[in-house]
């Protein structure tokens, strides 16, 4: 069954808006409602929408790299961020903040974001593949 015209033409716009919302959620996470995990789920939801409307090929071309690679690099990024303080004789995971709330917590959170997006989009791609 072919998706309806309204769906195919609006999904892309909605996806862009959703991702802008996700970015906003990500950046205000430190001081207000939001954060890496929430932003990740929101982004993943947009990817699910795109997959269901345009098929998995489109999604794959959109995120360029293998979703599982994205997730693994997210974990790696978070771990490495936690390791940084140990090079300055500080305890493991001691976070450092600079101006405007940008600092190691944000990098750590970005790792979480990558993991969530990667995992969920991997699942949707595989489920769609099996259909």
């Amino acid at each position, binding site marked *: 069954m072919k998706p309806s015209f309204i769906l195919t033409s609006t999904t892309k716009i909605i996806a862009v808006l959703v991702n802008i919302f996700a970015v906003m959620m990500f950046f205000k996470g430190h001081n207000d409602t939001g954060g890496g*995990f929430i932003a990740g789920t929101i982004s993943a939801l947009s990817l699910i929408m795109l997959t269901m409307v345009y098929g998995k090929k489109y999604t794959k071309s959109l995120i360029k790299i293998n979703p599982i690679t994205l997730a693994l690099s997210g974990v790696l990024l978070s771990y490495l961020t936690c390791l940084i303080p140990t090079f300055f004789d500080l305890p493991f995971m001691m976070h450092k903040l600079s101006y405007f709330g940008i600092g190691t917590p944000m990098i750590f959170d970005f790792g979480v974001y990558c993991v969530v997006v990667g995992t969920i989009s991997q699942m949707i791609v595989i489920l769609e593949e099996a259909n």
Partner: protein
Amino acid sequence: MLVPLVSLVIVLDIASQSSLPQTTFLKWIPELGIHLSFLIDKVSLFFTGVTCLMGALIGLYCQSYFKKASPRFYIYLMLFMTSMMGTVVSNNIGLLIVFWELTAIASFLLIGFNTTTKEAQKGALMTLLVTSITGLCLMAGLILVALITQFTQLSDLIEIAPQLSSLQPYLTPAFILILIGILGKSAQFPFHFWLPKAMSAPAPVSAYLHSAAMVKLGIFLLARLYPIFSQNSLWTPTLLTIGVITMVIGAMYAVLSHDIKELLAYSTISQLGALVLNFAMTSAGDSNSILFQILNHVVYKGALFMAAGIAIQVFHTQDIRKMSGLLKFAPIAAIGAIIALASMMAIPGTTGFISKEMTLTSLLSLQISYDAGILIAAVIVTNIALIIAGSRLIMIFFGPLKGLSEEHIDRPSFGIQLPVILSASIAFIFGTFPHMQLSIPLMISLFSLSVGITLSLVSYYKKWQWGPCPRWANMGSHCDDVITQIRVWSTKMTQIVKTDTPTQYLPITLGFISAILLLIMMPLFPQIMQYLYQDDPISSLAITLAGIIAAGAIAACIVPHAMHRLIALSVVGIVVCFYFIVYQAPDLAITQLMIEAIGLVFMVILLKRLPKDSVDRPITVFKQAGNLVISVIMGCLATSLIVLMTNNQLIESMSGYFIQNTQALAGGSNTVNTILVDFRGFDTMGEISVLIIAALGVVGVLWTKEAHE
């Protein structure tokens, strides 16, 4: 091969310069008393030296052994060498265990290197099982020692060893556990069966792991712990018994086996038994002779395993009855192997002879109440058996070719033969020290030598006619049986608990859980009732939401179609989000909403995939009633658990601390997020790792499913 050579030079350099013992210290996990601490003394220096020496020779051998270069093999080999060296130099109990287990893993990878053959899989699995189970015993034993003595540094333990005599009764369980670990690693009775099984490994692996390195770790640990446990009343009798049993049965099996590598493996077991026996007898200052014996065994057994690898490559079989005339094709390796065999048979002029003389001398001077006669008889029997086994091996170098034409043989290269003779020459050079004097040990040796040669000549003319080893005596097959039985029983067990439809197994599992919980919660019911009837003002909004949730849940139970049920369930989920908003938890609400949406999409896709009749399968009324009872009980139990938890604050809530310190310590004003990335960031790290594992699991399950289709 350069790496081990360079490290050998470094080891020799340390040996010639430094004053021993030396220790280094670096904090790692101070809370558990685990530090990166290394101890360099005579024992560890000797073992690192031996490891490097054999590592270099094996590296040279591998260059020619493998037709194709395989980087994977060298990675495993280096991993093994590193962990081996780590074990012998580590000064901390925790570090020792880590490296000890690493050697087990590396040896698993090395033995199973030919991943496609069944024997390699089996041998690697058995090695891993035996060494890791006994390794756990070792860990328990070492932790006991640490708990009793309050020391985790081996150097400290050795220092205070003389004062430990009052603690010896308490240390006995620790000693037994450690001994199990040692016996497992060094393939001593009753764990001797894994070594022949591990012979499915490529020849260089056998030459390295099973002559020089891995099996010597147990001996190393005996040497290391000697000062601590040698006063224990169990030390001498247990080591004596185990050593003698292992020595004799190893030699016996060596005579009985026709497989060249198995024969060598059994003779290794026998030699290791002799080493354990030596530890039971020597007085503390006399460890030089033991180290000498270890060196002797390492060099000649390494040479023999390497020669065996050459023979197998030439003849394409492991049966020594089908091998002959190797001298013509590989003269250098043959001479090396014959020297090594002479050392194994303890013929005068080799290190093997000296080493056996040492054993006999200390046996004769034994001033204890054990019957030394039996022990000497055991040594003689072992020696005779090893001479017979050795002379069988010598036969493969002489005589005409059997069943192979000369053109078809690929002649071993010079590079593969060189390490054999290098290794064997060490045994020869050290062996020619003048040691001859007419003494009782010499007489005993000459006696066993003549008997051994006569017996092997007799059996040579009888063409080695004897049956295979009886099944009951073969411990390896018993272990195989146990492993197979475990697999059979776990399959049966899984069949009972698991079925393909959740409607069948969920009632069983949930019913079991609710029964247990009911038993625990029964006495608390009056209390729960009391909490339930408290007069708390509840807003009308909350009541409305609760009503919607309940309606959704009930609807999910009674609507007929699966898709409708799903929608009813998602109503429940989304209204719960409103609850979070009512109680001012926006982060939770958003997360819940997102997860609800994603979950719904996944479920819809899955429902589309399932066959129609499996989703809406009718259930009998009786079963439905049973399910209803179980669900009601589970619901009541969950509710009462929540009521109990919210009213009974056993420990002070952490939330106050977090809210107060969010700005000061984490520099953010969203408490939830600072908890996630900062205060409890460690948990988040764990969670994202779990997420990855789950994703990989999904990939694995669905891909194999497609492969089946």
